[in-house]
């Protein structure tokens, strides 16, 4: 069957595909046509827009509150939202909230090796910062000899044009110090000073802030997107 020259048939099949009545072999055949026919894809998308609002023509009903709690719990949103304030009053609380596995450190080292450092660099400390889903987002390495802190984004963070990412060093006492603003991708080197990352730093974190950085010099104002412990290697 040649449907390419038969727009009426194309239209009918696309409608039945979206409705769900196109079944079995006919459905699979249609999906194969979709792959290499942009016009058919467009026709199908149009039927999608036409018919999917049927879904809204049902009576609304409120789900029980535990549904949201489960979603929040499963995505780790509650922890992310409460994390920053929770340790400010109790310096130990964030240690508990952190719960980083040794695996993360191993992953950091693997990545460091992959990054391709020069012979002269000496890595004294590393951190892998992960998001709420425990996906590694940034790798940081400290080179004390050259006094450099290298920050690499593993992927790409989608940051709105009016926002920026800000990197923080958090001391064992729970006091954050800004290390600087980050681009949403690529690598960046910052000066490594005792003042910025001293011996008492236990944790690095990245928050989402208004353009230009946190308006509060004492700490982040936006949500913490990534965090990870600062692991000294020597």
């Amino acid at each position, binding site marked *: 069957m040649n449907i390419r020259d038969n727009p009426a048939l194309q239209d*009918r099949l696309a*409608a039945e595909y979206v409705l769900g009545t196109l079944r079995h072999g006919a459905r699979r055949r249609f999906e194969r046509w979709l792959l290499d026919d942009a016009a058919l894809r467009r026709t199908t998308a149009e039927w999608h*827009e036409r*018919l999917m609002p049927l879904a*809204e023509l049902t009576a609304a009903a409120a789900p029980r509150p535990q549904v949201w709690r*489960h*979603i929040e719990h499963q995505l780790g949103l509650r922890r992310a939202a409460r994390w920053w304030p929770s340790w400010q009053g109790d310096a130990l609380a964030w240690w508990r909230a952190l719960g980083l596995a040794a695996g993360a450190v191993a992953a950091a080292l693997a990545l460091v090796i992959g990054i391709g450092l020069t012979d002269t660099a000496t890595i004294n400390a590393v951190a892998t910062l992960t998001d709420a889903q425990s996906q590694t987002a940034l790798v940081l390495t400290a080179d004390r000899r050259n006094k450099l802190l290298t920050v690499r984004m593993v992927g790409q963070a989608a940051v709105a044009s009016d926002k920026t990412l800000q990197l923080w060093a958090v001391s064992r006492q729970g006091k954050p110090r800004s290390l600087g603003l980050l681009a949403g991708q690529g690598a960046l080197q910052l000066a490594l000073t005792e003042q910025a990352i001293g011996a008492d730093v236990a944790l690095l974190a990245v928050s989402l802030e208004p353009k230009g950085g946190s308006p509060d010099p004492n700490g982040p104002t936006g949500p913490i997107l990534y965090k990870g412990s600062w692991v000294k290697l020597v």
Partner: protein
Amino acid sequence: MFVRASRRSRQRFLLRCAVPSEPNPLDPAYLRHQLQLVARRDAAAFRRLYDATSSKLFGLATRILIKRELAEEVLQDSFIAIWNSAASYQSHLAAPMTWMSTIVRNKAFDFRRRADDMVELDADRFDGALVDAAEDSGPGPADALQLSNDARALALCMDTLEGMHRQAIGLAFFHDLSHSEVAQQLTLPIGTVKTWIRRGLARLKTCLARQEQS
């Protein structure tokens, strides 16, 4: 088995659709903005998106799965998928409610296929979508307002179909039924059902195009 909407109830429904007096929480621009924020891992926006759409999407999941526990499980899975794939949402390809409804519908169908015997279809629920929305005694005008403009237009066009055509389309759409399954439910020959569905869809297309022009 079939409940035909009375002329009066249809008029009531259309009237309710026609008089929005407060901001529509399903406004596509609002939802699109929240989705963009969710793509950037904004948990507060995710909550706003949930507040705006969860009851509508839960209504859909319940319509498909009947049992509340199953519908809640599907809603939960769907919102996790929405959080995880918000970055891939392309606003030029689909309206936000279309995108989210598709996720919920697909997940609910998957669920039903896995646990087919668990879900007993209730024949009384089988009348066309519009009739259901019009006849439900519970929701008042506020519920009718919870329709995007797309859905409002579609409701008006569904109303122009013959009751049985509308019912056949509703059965296929909400219950994942094939032509032969629809025919079985309606105790009609499969050829008749095929023709009705085809005509119904063609009529919807013409009606929606006309509405878009006006």
